[in-house]
């Protein structure tokens, strides 16, 4: 690792309007290393990456390539120099095929026409090295999110790349795909490519990164060899204080706690078959499983968000929710996993967003802007939303603050069953902890919580019981106490499978 850095930033600062998001940060990337950037949401990781790859121009400081100061007027200039950024929001054209996307803007030509054969062969080879089984003629629209991510990566490495910047690449990947990605990263670094890697997942960073630069509130805390830090030390430096226990205490669910929500034999055509589960007041029911196991679809089906049949009981009463409004009236709320497309009106202000789901409380019959504003101010305080001004559009907030607004919107409907779908996806560790403790508060109020999550530590840390799904079916209902990741994964991958309980009165494991 004694090589000279390929790319470095010296004293980089960046302001958006009056707000400085990055202050005099030094960073350097050496050939063959994986250099991780970590920090809470809004710490400036993505901004730093965009300064280095030509998407933004620094207000102060300079970018140095091979020892010489350079200016990338735009991302194309950076890409020409071999510095490629893979976006957090995928940058593919949905209606073009995989092959057309990979070679978009630099199609191979033959006799003045696009040489599709050559493009297809090259794309197929690339995908093969990524071990991604996607037909190159399929339209990107028809791919899963993780497949699209792999195509994005293929597109990046199809160029002469010297520095590859990856912004939360594994957020949408399954465990296996993550392994494939890491293999690819190791091969690239062996060839001398430098990787700049942003992730919230500290265990991943421990696995893949050589050095880590920690940012907090736009300032650099330091650059460390990964071997010199434990994840806990990393997290502490990110938030600037000791992270006490990540999870709230897990109070036992009283034996006589009533069942709040009970689902029996629910089929969601194409996604879920014969799912049965129950959650009691004051209980967290974790829903684990791999991406595509049907976890989201199960609850969207139960709540009338997609077609489904089966029996659902709320507080022991049979219900039939044909529309989300029916579920809302029965005080059941669902937090979507897709915050940006389904959770927030990004172009509308925070006030309209926060009251959207409970507008009947604020409009009888005329909307009451003062009351709405008070509701927003209350939500901002209760959920510790950190914004300089309240009259901004929701799209202007960081992921963590957006999630708090969506959560606040949900809670204004005063639900007593809350279904949280990937509540901490793309959120920094400090905000995660706040959300975990909020779940703890809900339990104390006797709310029943369903936690759908791909992050096993949070499922194990919060859930009293864990339902594991595989390929549209529930493979096991496990007691949360003493449960370990390996056991859950065995059920999630279908290696283990419990026979479905004859009746719900005798689940395999009692709490």
């Amino acid at each position: 690792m004694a090589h000279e850095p390929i790319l470095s930033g010296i004293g980089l600062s960046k302001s958006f309007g009056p707000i400085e998001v990055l202050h005099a940060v030094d960073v350097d990337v050496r050939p063959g290393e994986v250099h991780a950037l970590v920090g809470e949401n809004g710490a400036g990781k993505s901004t730093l990456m965009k300064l280095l790859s030509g998407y933004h121009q620094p207000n102060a400081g300079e970018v140095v390539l091979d020892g010489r100061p350079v200016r990338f007027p735009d991302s194309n200039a950076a890409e020409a120099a071999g510095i490629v950024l893979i976006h957090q929001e995928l940058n593919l054209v949905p209606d073009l095929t995989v092959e057309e996307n990979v070679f978009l803007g630099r199609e191979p030509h033959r006799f003045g026409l696009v040489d599709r054969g050559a493009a297809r062969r090259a794309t197929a080879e690339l995908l093969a090295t990524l071990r991604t089984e996607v037909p190159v003629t399929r339209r990107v629209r028809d791919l899963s999110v993780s497949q699209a991510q792999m195509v994005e990566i293929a597109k990046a490495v199809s160029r002469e790349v010297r520095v590859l910047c990856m912004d939360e690449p594994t957020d949408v990947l399954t465990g296996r795909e993550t392994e494939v990605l890491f293999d690819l990263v190791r091969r690239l670094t062996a060839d001398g490519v430098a990787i700049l890697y942003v992730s919230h997942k500290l265990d991943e960073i421990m696995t893949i990164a050589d050095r880590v630069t920690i940012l907090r509130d736009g300032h650099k805390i330091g650059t460390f060899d990964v071997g010199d830090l434990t994840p806990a030390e990393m997290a502490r430096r990110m938030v600037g204080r000791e992270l006490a226990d990540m999870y709230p205490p897990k109070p036992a669910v009283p034996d006589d706690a009533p069942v709040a929500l009970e689902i029996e034999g629910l089929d969601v055509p194409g996604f879920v078959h014969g799912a049965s589960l129950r959650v009691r007041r004051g209980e967290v029911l974790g829903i684990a499983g791999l991406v595509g196991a049907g976890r989201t679809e199960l609850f969207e089906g139960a709540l009338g968000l997609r077609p489904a049949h089966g029996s659902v009981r709320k507080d022991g009463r049979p219900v039939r929710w044909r529309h989300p409004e029916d579920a809302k009236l029965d005080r059941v709320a669902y937090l979507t996993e897709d915050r940006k497309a389904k959770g927030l009106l990004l172009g509308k202000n925070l006030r309209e967003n926060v009251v959207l789901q409970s507008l009947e409380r604020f409009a009888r019959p005329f909307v009451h802007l003062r009351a709405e504003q008070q509701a927003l101010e209350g939500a901002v305080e209760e959920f510790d939303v950190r914004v300089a001004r309240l009259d901004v559009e929701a799209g202007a907030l960081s992921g963590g603050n957006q999630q708090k607004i969506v959560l606040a919107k949900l809670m204004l409907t005063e639900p007593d069953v809350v279904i949280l779908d990937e509540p901490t996806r793309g959120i920094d560790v400090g905000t995660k902890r706040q959300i975990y403790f909020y779940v703890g508060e809900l339990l104390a109020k006797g709310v029943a919580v369903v936690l759908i999550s791909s992050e096993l530590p949070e499922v194990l840390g919060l859930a009293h019981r864990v339902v594991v799904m595989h390929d549209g079916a529930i493979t096991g209902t496990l007691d949360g106490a003493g449960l370990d990741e390996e056991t859950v994964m065995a059920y999630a991958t279908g290696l283990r499978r419990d026979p479905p309980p004859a009746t719900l009165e005798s689940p395999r494991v009692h709490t």
Partner: protein
Amino acid sequence: MSTPETVAAPSWRARLRRVPWQQLTPLAGLVLLVIVGSLMHPAFLTSTNLFNVLTRSAFIGIIAVGGTFVIIGGGIDLSVGSMAAFLSGAMILLMNALYGGTISPVGVVLIGVGLVLGSGLLAGAANGLAITRGRIEPFIVTLGTLGIFRSLVTYLADGGTISLNFALRGVYRPVFYGSFLGVPIPVWAFAVVAVLGAILLHRTRFGRYVRAIGSNQEVARYAAIRVARVRTLTYVIQGLCVAIAVVLYVPRLGSASASTGILWELEAIAAVIIGGTALKGGSGHIWGTVVGAIMLSLIGNVLNLTSAISEYLNGTVQGLIIIGAVFLQRGRQGR
């Protein structure tokens, strides 16, 4: 950097900064047009002329108020001109048929008005249900009903003109030609529709839902909003507005034919867009639509009064103003 900040009472300067200047461009355009008009012809700024302009703008204006709901909700209704023609023809035929029986002429007109309003609701509901329940693009559905209504009125008129019985005309005439407190009835009707529309859009739950759905239908659905119902209702409102315009229009000429209401749909959409409503939905204002409708008829009026530009170029000027209006508003919508 990210410390929470309580919001103090906004200072005047802050309020000024928060005035959505770009949204005021339609109003500025209207003022400009009035200044130009009054400089070019002395008769322009007379109450007779201005009421004349407002009366003419009432038809398109009332239809455009309904169109504002449809467009903000993320839809489009191309059928309004044909619907107006069909409702006019059907109304005249019904009233002619009822006349001479036991019902008094006033009664006949009242029945006709009631029937038109009811039919407008139904026609709008048909559009809305085909779009929401049938899951068909609004553009396609209303393109279809545009053709259907147009051919129905041609059929009813047997290719010619449907004329209202002369006796009934005398009774019905004041609805268009009369005035109240010195203001023509159609202008009153336009004002009332606009005020009610503004209250509905800006001050009720329904209006908020329309904007939420136009902004992002999925978010609205996940927020437990009855998306299909709200969207259908925007078309019902549109149908009702068309019917109100028809009630005012029929006594004007006392006839309907296959060419009644031709291109009204485009004028109504133009009024909505000039008024600052985003064609992709999500945001907009009734007052902007009102300004847009008045501007459109003001252009024709200015061209008529002055001989600087041929009145045959009315469409050219309108077209330029539509494109210019959207160009000026682009900064707000581009992001």
